[in-house]
């Protein structure tokens, strides 16, 4: 039989490690969306004494390379300090898997992205962000550029879903150009809040829809 992946990829695909959700996670992030065909959620527990990742779990909706990368990334990150874990690259993950097809880079880089976002989420929640510049419309817009528009698989900024951003006294209001009864409205709202509320000076996030 001839499969499109290395033995190691197939092994992690068949028996992914560290699968699931950590309910009391210290940091978490969801990246990608069902529209792009790949989505990864990463959850971390951090030991505050030495800033080491004591536990890490992932969930994946995606193709084989996405699942295998999610699995290997949790193995690579476990027991590492946040700084070490942050510097894990796609190439390292790919090497650890015995190589991934180039065409699958975008599906598998998502898991690496997910781990970094989960660490960032932890740092922001725990006031560990060194960069204390105030949140501006530009900062919010850049973050929203990571929220996918499920209708197209492209991000919500590029597809003009962000109609308005307003920042006042720590409250960020975002108007999304979709009817509120749209099938993806709850999903988008949740992701937007997730991405914005962890910013150090943001107290509240309000998401409104146009109709």
């Amino acid at each position, binding site marked *: *039989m001839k*499969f*499109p*992946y290395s033995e190691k990829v*197939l092994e992690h*695909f*068949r028996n*992914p490690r560290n*699968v*699931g*959700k950590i309910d009391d996670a210290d940091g978490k992030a*969801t990246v990608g969306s*069902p*529209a*792009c*065909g*790949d*989505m*990864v*959620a990463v959850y971390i527990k951090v030991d505050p004494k030495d800033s080491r990742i004591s536990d890490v779990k992932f*969930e*994946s*909706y*995606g*193709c*084989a390379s*996405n*699942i295998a990368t999610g699995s290997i990334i949790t193995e690579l990150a476990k027991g590492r300090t946040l700084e070490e874990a942050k510097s894990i690259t796609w190439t390292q993950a790919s090497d650890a898997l015995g190589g991934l097809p180039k*065409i*699958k880079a975008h*599906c598998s880089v998502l898991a690496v992205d997910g781990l970094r976002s989960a660490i960032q989420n932890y740092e922001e929640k725990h006031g560990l962000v060194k960069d204390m510049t105030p949140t501006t419309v530009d900062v919010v817009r850049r973050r929203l550029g990571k929220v996918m528009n*499920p*209708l197209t*698989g492209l991000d919500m900024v590029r597809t003009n879903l962000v109609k308005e951003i307003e920042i006042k006294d720590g409250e960020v209001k975002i108007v999304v150009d979709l009817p509120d009864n749209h*099938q993806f409205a709850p999903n988008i709202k949740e992701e937007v809040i997730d991405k914005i509320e962890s910013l150090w000076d943001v107290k509240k996030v309000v998401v409104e829809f146009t109709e």
Partner: protein
Amino acid sequence: MPEKTSYLDNAAATRLDERVMDAMKPYFFDIYAVATSEFGYSLGIEAREAVDNSRNIIANALGADSDEFIFTSGSTESGNIALKGVALALGNKKGKHIIVSKIEDFPVLQSAKALEKQGFFVTYLNVDKDGFVDLEQLKESITGETILVSVQHANQEIGTVQDIEEIGRICREKKTFFHTDATHTFARLPIDVKKIQADMITVSANTIHGPKGVGGLYIRKETPVAKWMDGGFQEFNLRAGQENIPGAVGFAKAVELVTPEENAKLKDMRDRLIDLVLEKIPHTTLNGHRTKRTPQNANITFHFVEGESLTLHLDMRGFSVSTGSACFSRSLESSHVIRGIGGDHERAHGSLRFTFGRYNSMDDVDSVVSALEDIVRSLRKISPLGKKD
């Protein structure tokens, strides 16, 4: 490693029937000459007779005359000849408007897109949730400039069978030419050119256990098709190039071997698979119409999981199926058909197509369903989607 392979992708290609091979063999080793004119040498005349006999058999199966059928290299070429041939013949005389459905297979869809770049205008007909083209939109779209309507007989992915008798009637009434791609229905469903009023019909050998690289195009007399593959004067001077004699013979044999009993058996397997999956696996959606579909096709979305993962797990257990997921395709684009029937990307990514053929049995159905129950359960366990229920 699995003990055997259950091949469930018969819409893509089929296993050759040994009897087809036997019929083709002499034309590789004994009667290998080029098909000559009737004044050629005997080996060439024999080759020519083989092509003519094969043509008779296939034309007859369509209810057509022998001089209304040409052999091609497959349905891709047939679709190209139909669209570009008519465009070249009528583009400067009658008009530059072409109508196709938005869920056509790539030969028709990409030919239409190529013609757009040459200054033609294309209307892409909408389809409803089951994949049926909007007949009102069709009627409204045909103008004095419309030179061709191309709507498939049945869909390559979801199996939906169009009302092509009605489409043919509309086109005839509005005096425009009509091509239908019957790649997935020829020999599986009745096609009679006297009934369906199509001016051109695309057919293929490799969907019915015939050889790869052979297809054909029915062209009703007086349909304006310009020749654009230049060279010799073969195929009624419509398609240059030496005839693929073993291929033509194999195609004809393959047509003869399909029986109504076989088609009924395919339909039983299809129905059992659909019923079992929908009953046993939660959060599944049938794509395409429940009954108005080709006897060999079932297409189901397994929500919250992704198709390439499903196909790889199935492959590791010996089942070959295909998916509408972006990750599986060469273009990394999710199925335009599932999105065409109003499905979102998630529905396309999680869709699997099962297509049955002569060498499948009910055992294949039962074993693939039980494998699926297991695989879908384990993939859903690791998926962040759909956890609420």
